[in-house]
């Protein structure tokens, strides 16, 4: 795309250039925008397969407890993982509100909702860490049984993704604060929100496949 679009794209969705009669959202208006967004969708596909392999491994090893703790006994603290679920689902909602604020060109609200999302993400990671530490003190470690290896790796990989997302989101918040809502920041914010929703979906599967299945088995 030409220079003109590149330079004139510091505005809200209403000022965006038209493309085949359609008004494009701001994040699609730069040359890199559509490329990066499509590339990120494809990356999410690879990440989905990565989690798929971890889920498959967990499912194969779920009953391989080697005489140790089973999933039913391990997940007795229902409040803890339910709270994690509620918090993460809410954070997905607030990240959507952030995008909504971005579309309305409201910088303050955008930053506000992103900060709320980060705080919710941090509380999620905190609760998960607390859960892991609790298990550790009860002697349920990765090296106890194949089931526990699978559990810690699957849930831990998701937790690492969330932690990385938090660092990334903070980095984007600082840029919005400095440079406002422009095509570059809109693209970055849109992509991190895709990532955040993706992690939420993965968690829904962890919640149902790991925790709920464990509790009712």
């Amino acid at each position, binding site marked *: 795309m030409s220079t003109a679009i590149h330079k004139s794209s510091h505005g809200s969705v209403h000022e965006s250039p038209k493309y085949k009669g359609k008004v494009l959202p701001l994040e699609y208006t730069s040359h890199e925008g559509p490329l990066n967004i499509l590339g990120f969708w*494809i990356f999410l596909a690879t990440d989905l397969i990565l989690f798929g392999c971890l889920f498959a491994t967990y499912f*194969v090893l779920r009953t391989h407890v080697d005489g140790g703790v089973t999933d039913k006994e391990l997940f007795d603290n229902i409040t803890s993982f339910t709270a994690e679920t509620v918090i993460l689902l809410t954070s997905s909602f607030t990240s959507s509100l952030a995008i909504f604020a971005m579309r309305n060109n409201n910088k303050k609200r955008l930053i506000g909702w992103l900060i709320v999302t980060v705080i919710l993400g941090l509380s999620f990671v905190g609760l998960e860490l607390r859960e892991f530490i609790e298990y550790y003190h009860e002697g349920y470690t990765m090296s106890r049984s*194949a089931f526990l290896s699978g559990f810690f790796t699957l849930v831990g990989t998701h937790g690492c993704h969330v932690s990385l997302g938090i660092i990334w989101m903070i980095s984007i918040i600082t840029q919005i604060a400095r440079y406002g809502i422009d095509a570059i920041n809109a693209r970055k914010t849109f992509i991190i929100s895709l990532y955040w929703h993706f992690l939420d979906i993965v968690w829904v599967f962890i919640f149902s496949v790991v925790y709920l299945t464990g509790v009712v088995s």
Partner: protein
Amino acid sequence: MLDRLKEFASNFFVTGEPMIYMSDVAIVLVSLAIIFTLTYFKKWKWLWREWITTVDHKRIGIMYLISALLMLFRGGVDALLMRTQLALPNQHFLDAQHYNEIFTTHGTIMILFMAMPFIFALFNIAVPLQLGARDVAFPYLNAISFWMFFFGALLFNLSFVIGGSPDGGWMSYPPLTELPTDPGPGENFYLLGLQISGIGSIATGINFIVTILKMRAPGMKLMKMPLFCWSVLASCIVIIFAFPALTIALLLLMIDRMAGAHFFTMTGGGNPMMYINLFWVWGHPEVYIVILPAFGILSEVVATFSRKKIFGYASMVASLMVISIVSYLVWAHHYFVMGASAGVNSFFGVASMIIGIPTGVKIFNWIFTMFRGRVRMTLPIYWTMAMITCFAFGGMTGIMLAAVPIDYQVHNSYFLIAHFHQTLIGGVVFGLLAGLYYWWPKMFGFKLNERLGKWAFWFFNIGFYVCFMPQYALGFMGMTRRVYTYPADAGWTSMNFTSTIGAYMMGVGFIFMVVQILYSIKYGERDLTGDPWDGRTLEWSVPSPAPEYNFAHIPEVEERDAWWEMKQKGQSLVQLNHQKPFEPIHMPNNSGRPFIMSLFFFIAGFGLVFNWWWMGAVGLLGVAVTMVLRSQERHDSHYIPAEEVQRSEAALGRF
């Protein structure tokens, strides 16, 4: 203190073999020579500015190519050592442990550090030019991919002199490769080297899918795209769906070894079959990842040198896509004998045979393209014809192996070895060499000498059959893979000896190739037109080597074989230069960060190999910092002014 240092060094460095000491000396001397040359000619800055920080797809392609050829050399030396050991019965040229290490590194290097960078080299060199694009979709990510591959390969190869080589076979099956049965850092080198370069491969897959979907010249509909681009698209789709499984297989085995987990152990409820499944869910698609681009190359070469449109374009596209889908459904044929039910084995056996159908379609299409064409007998077409013949027969022995009852008889015998070498050398390597000769003038601006190339061709080809045909027979005679020696009365001596002769002939062929390249650098025929083969696709419409921005004006595409059609109508890009005004061109900035970030990955990997957690932490922290710096980067591109484009086109004699 001194004693402790001595003890550390004797564990840290590989010792005890005269060959290793010789290699140590050679490595130190070569490194010193490189450092001296760069310093003496004051080339450090040039190296940093022009190559290490580059994001130009053409230069990245050349770096991939050089790495691939170096790794072909190393993997080839491994092969010759093995064949020397097996030439006669009861030899002690290599001991059992050393032999294990060598077949492990040979397989791993040839697949992951030779074939993969070789296809990536040709992706990078040809795809953007064929599409009429100025670079790939994500040039910065492209540089990361290369450096991740580079440092992954470096880490893996270091095991040769530091710590000890991996010895668990190229698939590295647990429980053998778990800590109790395989202590020492060798296996860790394997896990981390592959993991690091694997991240780069996934990134390349994403990059080229987006490039092909989004960066085509105006008018180039998908069904007007050159077939090589189609094959790259198919290959990249397989990459993004297959590589995450390898990532997980390697990660879980690493967690087993480093954190005492029980994914694949025999105790604690572990299940080694899980690794084998995850590995082959990647591993079988992997062979299609490397063969599909070779199919694409052949389609370009036969059309160009027969001066005909490719026969059956649509069926070529369809067969590529069918192969890329069915390739996911065949992985269990690597372990028919491991106790799956008859139903499971039948499914995977039939699926494996079905792949023969689209492959057969392609082979017939190539033959029909040449049929009644005026085939010009150049090096690319030589290798193409060799590939069609060799691969067809390799495919047939593949059908034999896909039949479960036959597989029970010849499983893990030399029959299998001969089969997959015939498809991987006769298919992938021959195809990639055809591509190398075909696109060499585009990369470097001169042709490779035909006469030396034909010597290389005949040595390599005849050597191939002399080497591998006896191995089919050896398989039937009961010789299994990975035996490091055999008794004199087994009756295998003459076949093994013949096979070794063939291997050395292939080695001679490789030497001829090296001589050919060195000779042609000085005396090769220069390509001044940019179109030395009278080509059909857009890469031949620009000068050789292409300028930094590839196309001063992006051409409008109306037909398949866009450049051929333009030539038929008497058009060229030079006319465009006169008709349209020059405009500033948007280009990505160079960056040293991909190199530095991958270097941190290497540091982390090296630390983890020896369980030096502090070093692993330092490395990963460096990775995180470079990633945050990238996230904070806002302007990573610049414009080449219109006058400069005009000057550069004029200097190329095109304005």
